[in-house]
């Protein structure tokens, strides 16, 4: 199976952002994007404007609109949505219902403990949209190759 290439620097910056924004008290989201010319490449981490609290987050709709336009200008697509949970990593009913991308194959990664643990995927949870629209957990190593 083809795996997305995730630069270690992007992973590190994602954790740094989660810790800085969430402060161990609020959930936070990141988006990993890459160019359509290289569909398995992740080149950038995006920190969406959002409101966050202990049990969730909501993206700012105005920001989302401008980001959508920016993706078109840059010819880039969203490869993963990544967000933190206060404790255990899993996909909640809200996570299932309101992703940023709805296409089969889209991936959502949840990082436990507000990303205060070691940088990496220990106890993280990865899930993927199936052709019938349901989410199904997948092994992180089958989808991500840290470069």
């Amino acid at each position, binding site marked *: 199976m083809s795996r997305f290439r995730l630069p270690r620097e992007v992973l590190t910056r994602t954790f740094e952002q989660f810790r800085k924004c969430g402060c161990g008290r609020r959930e936070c989201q990141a988006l990993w994007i890459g160019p359509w010319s290289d569909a398995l490449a992740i080149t950038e981490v995006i920190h969406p404007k959002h409101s966050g609290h202990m049990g969730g987050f909501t993206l700012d709709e105005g920001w989302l609109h401008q980001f959508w336009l920016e993706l078109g200008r840059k010819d880039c697509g969203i490869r993963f949505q990544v967000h933190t949970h206060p404790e255990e990593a899993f996909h909640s009913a809200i996570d299932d219902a309101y992703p940023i991308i*709805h296409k089969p194959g889209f991936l959502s990664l949840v990082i436990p403990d507000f990303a205060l643990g070691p940088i990496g995927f220990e106890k993280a949870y990865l899930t993927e949209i199936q052709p019938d629209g349901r989410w199904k957990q997948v092994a992180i190593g089958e989808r991500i190759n840290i470069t």
Partner: protein
Amino acid sequence: MTIENDCDDGSLKAAEEHLKKAEGELERAEHDVEKAIEEIREAHHHHPEFEVTVLYDGVKKKFEVKPEELVKKLLEKAIQAFGPIPNPHTLALYPETGGEELKDDETLKQAGVKPHDLLLLRPSKVKGGDR
């Protein structure tokens, strides 16, 4: 030297009749064609097709639409074109300039969509949480 003329008066007259009939049919056919062209022109005048671009996840696709077409129809076409998208209930079309989503039950004309507009196909809400 003599030239034999095989045509008698009767066959010449019949040929002339035949020609006249054919000319009449040609005239009617030309009239029908002109009428059809005019009807097409009229249809285009009242329902001119135009092109819009829809953007989803950084990818742009072009669609031929009519002003009288419902937003819902274009939304369905876009979801099909970018799909399959199995749970598209939170997706809507938005004007490039931002603001409210285009209403499903309005026509493109009522929604203010013009030729060469860029429309965004995106979720209305993105959120997450552990409870």
